[in-house]
Structure formats: structure tokens, C-alpha cells
């Protein structure tokens, strides 16, 4: 994830959807993908934190990626999945609308995020890949986890 596209010829990416948009996450940071299960809400956490779940005896926080990117909350359906991923030593679950496939993407087809889009979610983007006419938005997991919090903390300071 930390290694930029240039140093590798191709990347393996877990492809998932959020509200009809296609996203990708480096497979190296994905531990497993599970079905949605009962989530315990934790008071006092940011909106995008859905709560905590029990993953085989471990308590793991789960976030709703839709909310994280300021979209309306996910609708829980049969295709809803939780991607369990690790970044910066923490393990978190991310609720996504569906997981479709694992793709090999040539590094050459990855472009940096367009500079023109600004906003809270943009900094969590690592780049955009075009594969077979499909546009896949690649996420930087470390930033998904921490940028928003940092922003909120800075907000408190003001």
C-alpha cells in the first residue's frame, strides 16, 4: 500500500462497490472479508464508526465507508460485506455494499487523483485506475483510517 505504483509492474486490488461506485484496496492490507453481522454501537464515536464486532474473540471497530466519504449510510443487504483490513498496526472492519473481485491492475494504468476534485474524501484516494473501461478508485487505507480523525481533531482546536 505504501509502495507507489511506479515500483511495481502490477498491483493486486480487492474491488468493491459503494453506492454504484467502484473502489479498490491493495490486497496486502486486507485480512479477510466477512458477512455483515450484529454490530454493537459505541457511544461517543464519530458518525462513520458503526460500532464494534466480535471477530473470533477479538473486538474490532467497524466503520461505514459510505459515511466515511460523506455519502448516505450503507443499506444493509445480502451482498453487504465487511472488509477486515489492517493499517498502521490497527485492524478495522469496513462496511461495503458488495465485494466483486480481485483484480490485477498494471501500474501503468493507475493515474494520480485529479487535482481538481477537492474535499474531505479526496485525500484518502491514492489514484484512479482504468481497467476495461471501468474506473476504479484506489484507496489509501492509512488515510481512510486517520485523515478524517485528524481533520476532526483540528476542528476541535478552532
Amino acid at each position: 500500500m505504501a509502495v507507489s505504483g511506479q515500483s511495481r509492474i502490477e498491483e493486486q486490488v480487492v474491488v468493491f462497490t459503494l453506492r454504484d461506485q467502484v473502489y479498490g484496496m491493495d490486497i496486502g492490507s486486507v485480512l479477510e472479508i466477512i458477512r455483515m453481522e450484529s454490530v454493537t454501537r459505541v457511544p461517543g464515536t464519530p458518525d462513520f464508526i458503526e460500532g464494534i464486532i466480535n471477530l473470533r474473540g477479538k473486538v474490532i471497530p467497524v466503520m461505514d465507508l459510505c459515511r466515511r466519504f460523506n455519502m448516505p449510510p450503507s443499506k444493509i443487504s445480502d451482498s453487504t460485506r465487511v472488509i477486515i483490513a489492517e493499517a498502521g498496526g490497527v485492524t478495522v472492519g469496513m462496511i461495503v455494499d458488495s465485494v466483486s473481485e480481485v483484480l490485477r491492475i498494471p501500474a501503468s494504468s493507475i493515474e494520480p487523483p485529479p487535482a481538481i476534485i477537492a474535499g474531505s474524501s479526496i485525500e484518502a484516494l491514492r489514484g484512479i485506475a482504468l481497467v476495461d473501461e471501468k474506473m476504479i478508485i484506489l484507496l489509501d487505507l492509512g488515510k481512510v483510517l486517520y485523515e478524517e480523525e485528524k481533520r476532526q481533531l483540528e476542528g476541535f482546536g478552532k
Partner: protein
Amino acid sequence: MFNDVEMMVFMEELEEKIQSINDNVLLLEKDGGSPEVIQEIFRAAHTIKGSSAVMGFEKMAGLTHEIENLFDRLRQGTMEVNTHLVDVLFEALDNLKMLKDEITGNARDVQVEDVLHKLRAILKTGDGEESAGNGHGAGSGSSPQAGGPDRLDEVIGDMIREAEVRGFQAYWINVDIDSGCQMKNVRAFLVFETLQQIGEIIKSDPPAEDIQEGRYDRGFSLVLITKEDAGQVKNLLMSIAEVNSVDIVQLESGETDGYPGAASEGGRQEEDVGDIGRRAAAAGPEKNAIKTVRVDVQKLDNLMNLVSELVIDRTRLDRFVDIFENKYGSEELVENIVEISNHLGQITTDLQDEIMKARMLPVATVFNRLPRMVRDIAQKLGKEIDFIVEGKETELDRNVIEIIGDPLIHLIRNAIDHGIESPEERLRLGKPRKGRVVLKASYVESHIVITITDDGRGMDVEKIKKKALEKGLVKSDALARMSTREALDLIFMPGFSTAEEVSDVSGRGVGMDIVRNQIEQINGAVEYSSEVGRGTIFQIKLPLTLVIIRALMVGMGDQVYAFPLSNVMETLAIKESDIKFIRHSEVIVVRGSVLPLVRLAGLFQIESRTEDGRLYVVVLGSGNRRVGVVVDKLIGEQEIVIKSLGSYLGQMTGLSGATILGDGRVALIIDAKGIVKDTGKEELAYAN
């Protein structure tokens, strides 16, 4: 250089041996030292000498060498224990600890010359005494080639008798080494090495050191304690190159001349019992060797997690068993599943218990450090203390053990400094000259209780009141209204300290409030009672473990929350109409006093779903404060495994962790102390 693992093993061994010397020197001071105690110190010093020399810590090797020499003399009975000796030994021990710190980088340029001189000086005076005529036999001048065992001195006699009691044999062995031997030291080393594998060498002639350095004529003699028979010992020794012949004579304790108890059989029995008692007192890890493996705590935690999963799966299996029973009735197959499920349940419970036990350590790891501290403090303050430790073997979770040390030290210091009077004052009061401080650990129900009892002057209410007033901790009108108990509780106020002058023993004003905080941090509680002129008892109540606690489970909306039972004082059922207001805050009146209320629904911004307008209040207590928490319903008590919320969520207000329920769902654990601390201040201030 040596790698980390070797270094770690060395440091651990060092720690263990220093502790062993420390414990045994205390015993030495107390009763003049039994042979076992002296033997134990000798051995510990010997081990440190060996390993530190190998590791290249010369100062340490040199120091332990001198200690070893000293104890070799004590062991042989050519020197007596006296106070000066004990003092120097403690000084040497301190130096040893400093040298250890030097290795870990916590100290620099530790000088040991001073204490080395003192140790050598003692050895010299010992020589003088010996030449003046020492009654005990086995002088080093006697011929090693004697045809049979020397007259054995008392110490050796004791050890042989004790060995017999334990089912060992004692042999006198004379080893004859080839006169043309080029490497006498190596041969001797092999002999020692071989014999030490099958038993224990308790005496040698000439002294072990001389033999191992090759300073012997044609052979040497040894006394060996072993379970092997004489033939076997002989075979082993004869297999060593250049050993010409081996003479073995079995020794019986009755043969020892000058042994006082040998005369009558009855007397001998009595002595034996005494010896066993003393042996038990000698704290040496080698003698009662427990077979152990060092395991990373993380591994135990992982095991615990796996067991929790097993528990959850078992619960699920139970549900399926019910389904099958409903569907197919009591068919044989269903019965089988029921049986398997029950058995699995039993095994998981046992497994959980065993892993919990594996995390436990005896409180001895903390308690063993204290006698020395008590001795030093007492000496510094000119007080005489009889320090009694009971229940060392009581086991506690290792996390609790880590935290409990400081509060204990503080309470014991207080007991000696503030509690126990000076010897003169005690005599004047008609008390025994020596003050008594008892430290005791025991199991009480599912808790461990540690009590510190002193027979000193007790807590003086007036003095405490005066002090609190002087320090500006309370106003005089508030003080006047206080009950005795409330006044005594002032000692738990931050910044309170009654020491007349600040000594380096206690009374730095970081006293009892810190003690109480530390104990509460690990879900414990501090209680005390005191009687003027009779003494004070402090009682620390601790959970057996920090991982599993008993909790009161409550329902809020569709979620379950857990309240640590250690903070739950009581539960009440109330009606909405019972709730009164003080300004904007809700309170209820319970048995005449005002109890501030917090609604969990409000605190956590969650939905509340009450039936028939009844509310339940969980009364939480921390220190002296009480707060009622309003919940939807009470579910019941349960043992829960505490899990952290993880670093991503971090510290959440009002929550102290999470736990996994039987059905696999996650429940949040309420931070009772936090809630008590944060609420009710304003209301109480107003109410009062």
C-alpha cells in the same frame, strides 16, 4: 558479546540469586543461620560468581567470590555470624544490586573496593579466631590421604541426617589421581562435575576451590549426598581418565562425633523435625526445584482468546442441540449430541480455569522484597520491628502483582513510621519492645485480601483533623460536622500527610490517595480500621484477575452493558415519580441521603425502552461517592472477559472496554469510576 537471550537468562538468574541471598541473609540475621541458610547463600553466591565471570563482569565475580569465601568459612563452622557481618553482607548485597544496574545501564562506575575490603577484613579476623582454637573438627590441615572419613563436624552431620530423612545416602569418597597427571584441575573438575550430576557435594578436603585449581597432592576426599548406590558412584568416577582408585564409605549420621542429638533416638527425631522446619524456611529455588517453562504472557493471552472462541461456539452448539431436540425428540442421535455438548462445555470451562491459573504468580514475588525494606526503615528510624509475612504462596494475576508493589511498600512504611512507637515509648506503654507488623495474603471468596496489621499507636483523629485544617484541605465548619470515620477518611485526600517532618521514609504528601488510586485501578478496594493505642489494620481487597471480572449485566434499548460488580453497591427499582430535581439535575432520596442520578440513555445518546414505567437504578460507588445510573432492565450477574476497545477507538468516555457475550455479540463495559467521578459533584455541593 553475548546475545540478548543469553543476557536475559543471565539477568533473570542474577535477579533470582540476589533475591535468594537477600532472603537468606535476613534469616541469618534473625536466628544466626541454620546450615541450610548458609549453604543456600553460598550456593547463590557461587552461581553468580560463575556466570558473571563467564559473561565478563569481573567486579561482580570478584565481589561474589569474597561472599562465597566468607560463607565457605561459615559453612565449615570456622566462623560465627555476628551483627557486623550481617551489616557488611547487606552492604555487599547493595553493591551487587548496583552492579546489576550497571549492567542494565541504570548505574555507572560502581565502586566495590570499599566493601571488598570489609569482607576481607572479616575473613582475616575469622582466621584469628580460628588459630585461637576452634572446637569444630575438619581443619584444613588434616591429611587428605587419611584412610577413612575425618571426624565430621556438626554442620555436615546435620546435612547428612537431613539427607537421610529425604531418602538420600551420604558417602565419603576418596579419589586417587594418577601422580603423573598433567591436568589435575581438569580431572578434579570432571570429578566434581560428574558427582554434581548425581548428587550434592557438601564437603571436600582440601577445599573445593583448591582442588579445582589443581592444588592437591595425589588425591582428595569428598562427602557426597546422592540417591545412587556406592557401586554406581564408583563406576562413574572410574570412567574418568587418570583416576587411579576410588574408595567409598557410606556415612551414617550416627557416626558423626560430637553431634549432640545422636545420643538418644528420641532426641534425634526431634532434631529432624526442627531441621525440616528450618529447611522450609531457607528460600532456595534449587532445593525445591519446580519444573517450569518461561512463557510470553502474550501467548497466554492468545490462548485465552482461543478459549473464548471455543466458549462462544459451544453456546451456539447448545442452541442447535435445542433445535434438534424440538425437531426429533429424544432420539439416540440427539442424545449423543447433548452428551457431546455437555462434555465440551465442561472441558472448555476447565481449560479456561487452567489458563487463568497459568497467568497467576505467587505474591511472594512482591512480598520477598519487603523484609529487607522493613529492616532498613526500622534501623533508620531506630525502631524495632518484628515483621511477619503470611500467605506468600497466594496467587494473583501477574498484572495485579505488578501494580500492587508500590501501595504495599507505602502502607508498610506508614505502619512503621507512623504506627509503631519507639522501643522506649512501647516499654513505657507496657507493650512489647518490638513492634509487630504482619503482612498477610489470603483468599476470601473470589477475592484476594492482603492485610497489613500493626500494633502501634493507631490513627489519632484529632491529629488528622488538625493536619487537614493546616493543609487547607477542609474548612473548619465542615470539619466540625464530620463523624470520626469521615475525619479518618481525610487521610485519603490528595496532599495529606501527617509526618511531623518530612522524612525520606514516608510523609512526602503523595500518600494514601495514590495508594487508593492504584488499588482502584486494578478493581481493588482499600478498607481500614484503627484503634487508638492498639494499632491499625489496612485491608486491600483485590480481584483474582484483571482479565475476568464479575459484572452486572443490564439492558438498554436492544443492547447489553456490563457494570463491574466491584463498583456496584446495590440496585434499586424506582418509578419516574420518585425522581426529584435539584436545579436541573435528577436525584433520588435513598434512606435519607441524596443520590445523584445519571441516565445511561442520556449519557450515551441511546434509546431507552422501558416497560410499565419502572426504572432500575444501579448504584455505583468509588471511594466515598455514590452515583445512581438509570437503566432499562437488569439482566443478571455474569463473569465476563475484559477486552480492550483497541487503539483505533482509543479511550472512550464512560467505557472501559468490551466483552463478548455467550451468543457472540459484543457488550460494552461501563467505566464506573469515571462516571462516579464526572457526575454529581455539582448536585452534592448544592445539596450540602
